């Protein structure tokens, strides 16, 4: 036990000596949570659109006014010619164009029918769909306004209520996601590199011939990082509550317990990578290049996992951050208790156990 503590002390000294790395480790989550918490949103806002008004009458002016007033759109330019539209799309200055034909108001008044053309830059398909549907609802609003009090009979009106996130902010989705992402990568990289580094510089041999079990060596390497990561969790939560105004609805204690479990999972994954690799570069390439995008995609905070092909859904099940994202979302945003996340907890614990056993086994083989 005393040995163990001495070891942890040594590792702590190592970590604390490297001020630059320390600064990055503590600064990184702060900056990232702030930037992403405020900037990332799946909501559509201020989309640049273009108007080609060939009618220039009262009706088109009113519709344009309504579009301008909506926070979804920002009218970037008025076009007079169809070639302007194409040019704007190709330059990337407009995402959607609205064309009012000549005599729009007259047709509306006399024939009770008029047509608007909406052209979307569908290179981003969802953005195009969403913008088109928002434009239709603005036009619909206008239409029922001019129809006056004479509402159509037998109306079915859906009352929409947004649970958990009534203002449709980005933060409730992205804060748990970024937590899962940052913790995972930081933990994996830290342990992966620090063990391989000893191998590369030859100091590992020294440690291994010493009279204590390799388990002690490894665990004492992981402990400082566990503590560092818990500090990161606290920082992130403080920022989330006081700056992003996203309080923890459920039990804080439970959230800490689960975060500790997740951090241990990631540290073990780091150990696994470091056991399997022999140079820092390979360890880094695998833990960063190989894991950054998959972690973003398979956690489920960017893209719904149920949309993926079945084999990829299966892959997503072994990505620890997916389970942690679900856990944080459940505790923080939905305010649920342990009874609704026991399955996720068990899976994380299972992944940790498997990684640990495999790492220890491979580690012993290297010894002989």
């Amino acid at each position: 036990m005393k040995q163990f503590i001495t070891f942890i002390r040594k590792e702590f000294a190592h970590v604390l000596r490297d001020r630059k790395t320390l600064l990055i480790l503590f600064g990184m989550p702060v900056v990232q949570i702030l930037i992403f918490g405020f900037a990332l949103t799946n909501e559509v806002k201020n989309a640049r659109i273009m108007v080609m008004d060939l009618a220039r009458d009262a009706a088109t002016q009113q519709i344009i006014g309504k579009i301008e007033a909506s926070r979804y759109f920002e009218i970037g330019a008025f076009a007079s010619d169809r070639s302007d539209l194409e040019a704007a799309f190709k330059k990337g200055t407009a995402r959607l164009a609205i064309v009012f034909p000549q005599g729009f108001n007259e047709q509306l008044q006399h024939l009770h029918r008029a047509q608007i053309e909406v052209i979307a830059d569908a290179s981003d398909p969802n953005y195009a769909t969403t913008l088109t549907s928002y434009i239709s609802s603005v036009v619909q609003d206008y239409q029922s306004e001019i129809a006056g009090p004479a509402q159509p009979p037998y109306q079915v009106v859906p009352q929409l209520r947004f649970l958990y996130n009534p203002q449709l902010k980005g933060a409730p989705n992205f804060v748990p996601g970024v937590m899962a992402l940052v913790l995972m990568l930081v933990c994996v990289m830290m342990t992966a590199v620090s063990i391989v580094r000893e191998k590369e510089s030859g100091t590992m041999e020294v440690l291994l011939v010493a009279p204590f079990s390799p388990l002690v060596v490894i665990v004492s390497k992981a402990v400082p990082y566990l503590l560092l990561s818990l500090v990161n969790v606290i920082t992130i939560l403080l920022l989330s509550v006081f700056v992003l105004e996203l309080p923890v609805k459920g039990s804080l204690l439970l959230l800490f317990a689960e975060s500790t479990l997740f951090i241990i999972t990631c540290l073990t994954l780091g150990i696994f990578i470091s056991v399997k690799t022999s140079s820092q570069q390979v360890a880094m390439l695998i833990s960063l290049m190989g894991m950054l995008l998959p972690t973003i995609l398979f956690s489920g905070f960017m893209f719904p996992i149920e949309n993926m092909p079945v084999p990829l859904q299966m892959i997503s099940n072994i990505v620890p951050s997916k389970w942690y994202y679900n856990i944080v979302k459940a505790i923080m945003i939905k305010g649920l208790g342990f009874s609704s996340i026991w399955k996720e907890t068990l899976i994380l614990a299972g992944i940790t156990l498997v990684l640990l056993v495999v790492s220890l086994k491979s580690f012993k083989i290297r010894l002989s």
Partner: protein
Amino acid sequence: MRTILFLLEKEFRQIFRNRSILALVLAMPLIQLVLLPLAANYEVKNINIAVIDNDHSSYSRKLISKITASGYFRLSGYNFSFKEALQLIESDQADLILEIPQGFERNLVRENRQQLFVAVNAINGTKANLGGVYLASVIKADNDDIRLDLMQQERFPAQPAIGIASSNWYNPLLNYQMYMVPGILAILVTMIGGFLTALNIVKEKEVGTIEQINVTPIRKHHFILGKLIPFWVLGNVVFTLGLLVARVLYDIIPLGSIFLLYGFIWVYLLAVLGFGLLVSTFCDSQQQAMFIMFFFIMIFILMGGLFTSVDSMPEWAKMLSRLNPVTYLIEVMRMVILKGSGIKDIAGRLGIILLFGVLLNALAVLNYKKTS
């Protein structure tokens, strides 16, 4: 000139000697490019809906069958209490709850107006929004049917109707992969270029070989060029392989000029490699270099407009994304590949990237001088 050639020979040898890294560097981006676009799918389908039908009338049943037949929704629960339906939402088994009130059909006929209650899990804004929009449109279509049914031969009062003819340019089938593949390729090329250069000089520092180079009469810019060119070539190889994957697997053939794409990538790689070099001149260990690169790459990726639109960001974030080279690459890739934009359309972006390149590399050379 001869010095550079020798340096290049050395660097290339070093790269080719380490087969496992070379294989990793080529295979990893390719595997990701093959798999990840399939995962990055935001087509709205499979929205799970829980229905609470308190009415059990012919209208409520018709509405429910219309919802399930629309292709967007999947019934995950039927005839629950609201509390039970909420549990489905809590456990992520349902995204939406539709509650049809008791006496819906009777009251609609009597009172001319009835409400339906829809609760949406809004943690993820897009899904909530699109789900709500789709459900509303199904309800509206159903409403029109009911009206026809109830009014039979009666005529609708003449109401002004504004039709909307919508068309989708550049991607009429709304294929999401067309949009994601160029973006993901942009990220992969950036990561390869940035990481490898950042790690490279630091490694020489860590191992001590940089001292040996520093005592030789090699000029600073020779040294930097010697580091830059091999990774520039490697970046081009990865980019070319990526274009091939996009073509063979995803059927994405650039609409615009392929030379324009390469021209942009050539300049862009200079900028990214310059950034990697700059980072490596600041660091003393590979670990540090990697953490700094990780910090920036993550911001580059998430703020670059790959997954979420730059337009929707607040003003300060938009400015930040203008300082992000990845934003420009993602935009240009999508513009040239999907819309066929030409040199005139991207000239501004090309200029900015060129500026980045010159600036970052100059800083790297300057900063390298200081440390030696």
